[in-house]
């Protein structure tokens, strides 16, 4: 089949091959039929009240709110961070001035691994993939002048999530904003780190305990905060299909719910603050079906399996990011079009919040210019396209409802496989997720190699023109400024308070008490992220990954 199209897609055979000889599949490789009719809905036993219902009503397939974007647009939340806290603070202000409606902090790799900027393993990594935050002093500068009582902040941090959250809480409280008023989201999803993104520190079991600590702390003290953002984004970026992204994410969600229930929390006390985060790739209808299926499956799980009584517990609220892995270094301007298609699918899929990638991200950290175009893309969809006027306009489409149903069925089949392996953590330990993701990534590369799948400008329709786009220039003094601040923090803090705080942290970590209060004390005593992580690592151990190729 693939041989039919090997070669130059300009070849007239490519366009004139008879349909019966061509493969019509989604980007994930799922077959798509020529025409969908009422017979397809009859075949899946489609029942409006049971499978869809009106927006804002169980199982929320059509959206968690009755009025959706008529009542409130999605939050335009651009993931941002590079260099030192000063530079990223300036980028936040730039984005807010241009109409962004929520913050999203990207941390650099040393921070993501709980290491200070001057850690030997951090060499060369400062500020490259995000902003360096090694102590409360960095966090305070990062948030300076940002109205933390008005804006919501999302933080992409997992291994050291509890410590970074403690810094955010401490920085806000020093400005007189009580923690109970803070609104935002901690990504805090360690399970997908073991399966896809690899930013883990501690082994799975103690990591789950820390996640549960944060869920418990949010439930008690921070009722407006989303304690976790259960994420498929990174699973997809690592190469999974759309179905695997959804199935693995929801399976992780089940694991977090079970851990919180084991801790003795009431489902309806914590479940409303669970949030989700998905990727949105190029295959328009597959993605929309994924989002609609996601809401339906989660609502049913919460009510039927976990006995949730509150409607809010059954709401799947999610953030969407357009697919970084879909961006091309070749003809980067084309990425604007890809991102537009993906963002539109996210909106038609009913997202609560959206990040649109910048056109230059296959090449570099995004420039102000590129980020502004990405933000404008959302604004054009929101204010010019008219798609926000009616809620879930695709409901009832023979195709969309069939794809949604098929997505749901495949996800449930994967749940059964995971359960047969003993659940998420045993499946991680057996390499199940890692192997499936690697298989799907390789299958996609092979599809590109023999042109069963086309990426314009990459394996078809290539041009030799060099890209002409401006790149971000980072402040060359940023790293020295950061290292100097770190030295000053260590020199000027009260050594007695610092030592006491770390001792207490060690004690509560070992005693399996909730670590959050001790972490807030430790960051207030200017213990650095590296010191905190080392203290906890000495008690909890370090994860050694199974290498799965």
């Amino acid at each position, binding site marked *: 089949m693939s041989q039919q199209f090997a070669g130059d897609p300009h070849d007239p055979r490519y366009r004139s091959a008879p349909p019966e000889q061509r493969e019509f599949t989604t980007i994930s490789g799922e077959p798509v039929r020529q025409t969908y009719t009422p017979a397809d809905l009859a075949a899946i036993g489609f029942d409006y009240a049971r499978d869809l219902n009106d927006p804002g009503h169980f199982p929320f397939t059509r959206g968690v709110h009755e009025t959706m974007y008529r009542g409130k647009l999605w939050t335009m939340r651009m993931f941002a961070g590079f260099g030192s806290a000063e530079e990223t603070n300036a980028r936040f202000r730039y984005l807010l001035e241009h109409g962004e409606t929520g913050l999203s902090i990207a941390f650099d*790799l*040393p921070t*993501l*691994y709980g*290491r200070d900027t001057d850690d030997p*393993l*951090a*060499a*060369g*990594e400062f500020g*490259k*993939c995000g902003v360096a935050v090694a102590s409360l002093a960095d966090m305070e500068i990062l948030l300076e002048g940002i109205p933390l009582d008005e804006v919501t902040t999302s933080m992409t941090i997992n291994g050291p999530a509890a410590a970074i959250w403690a810094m955010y809480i401490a920085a806000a409280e020093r400005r007189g904003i009580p923690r109970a008023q803070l609104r935002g989201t901690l990504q805090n999803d360690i399970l997908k780190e073991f399966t896809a*993104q*690899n*930013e883990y520190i501690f082994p799975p079991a103690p990591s789950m305990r820390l996640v549960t600590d944060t869920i418990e702390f949010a439930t008690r003290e921070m009722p407006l905060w989303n304690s976790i953002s259960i994420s498929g984004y990174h699973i997809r*970026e*690592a*190469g999974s299909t759309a179905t695997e992204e959804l199935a693995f994410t929801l399976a992780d969600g089940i694991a977090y719910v079970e851990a919180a229930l084991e801790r003795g929390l009431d489902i309806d006390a914590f479940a409303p603050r669970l949030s989700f985060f998905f990727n949105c790739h190029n295959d328009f209808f597959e993605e929309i079906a994924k989002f609609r299926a996601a809401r339906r499956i989660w609502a049913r799980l919460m009510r039927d399996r976990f006995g949730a009584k509150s409607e809010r517990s059954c709401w799947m609220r999610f953030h969407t990011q357009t697919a970084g*892995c879909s961006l*091309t*270094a*070749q003809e980067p301007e084309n990425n604007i079009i890809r991102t537009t298609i993906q963002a539109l699918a996210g909106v038609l899929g009913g997202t609560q919040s959206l990040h649109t990638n910048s056109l230059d991200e*296959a*090449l*570099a*950290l995004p420039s102000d210019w590129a980020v502004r175009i990405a933000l404008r893309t959302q604004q054009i969809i929101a204010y010019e396209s008219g798609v926000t006027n009616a809620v879930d306009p695709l409901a009832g489409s023979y195709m969309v409802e069939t794809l949604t149903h098929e997505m749901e069925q495949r996800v449930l089949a994967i749940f059964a496989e995971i359960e047969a392996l003993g659940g998420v953590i045993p499946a991680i330990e057996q390499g199940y997720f890692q192997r499936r993701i*690697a298989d799907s*990534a*390789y299958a996609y*590369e092979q599809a*590109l*190699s023999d042109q069963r799948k086309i*990426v314009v400008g*990459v*394996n078809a329709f290539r041009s030799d023109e060099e890209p002409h786009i401006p*790149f971000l220039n980072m402040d060359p003094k940023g790293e020295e400024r950061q290292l100097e601040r770190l030295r000053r923090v260590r020199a000027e803090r009260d050594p007695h308070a610092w030592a006491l705080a770390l001792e207490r942290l060690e004690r509560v970590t070992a005693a399996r008490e909730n670590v959050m209060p001790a972490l807030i004390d430790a960051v207030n005593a200017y213990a650095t992220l590296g010191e905190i992580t080392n203290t906890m690592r000495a008690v909890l151990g370090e994860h050694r*990954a199974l*290498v799965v*190729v």
Partner: protein
Amino acid sequence: MLNTVEPNAEVPPRVGPIRVLIAKPGLDGHDRGAKVMARALRDAGMEVIYTGLFQTPEMIARAALDEDVDVIGLSILSGAHRALFPRIFQELRAAGLDDVLVVAGGTIPDEDVAALKEIGVAAVFGPGTPIETAVRFIRENAPNRSTV
């Protein structure tokens, strides 16, 4: 352009398959490309050793020596290549591995490629490089270290 190695008539024909170490230096956890390349090279008949993540320059040189590889493929997407690659080459030289073919892949901007080639990287395969381009380059340029 890709560097090419002149065929040497003195060298006896290869015994056994080309041995490749795929290594992930630094703190960068993006291993999709490394794993895809490891499989593609294996499917092309080579013997592939994948280091896993978080490799220091010392660990990479050590693994190359222990595994007696002909080729090292460095995969990096964090942007730390300018800092880490010179240290990797230092360690390789110290281990007497001057003749190993070193190639790199990942998000490496064009303006950095010349500097990396100067320190000894034979080829840089950026985003969107067809797999077969990298496989072919390795097959055609791997030194014949594993003669018996």
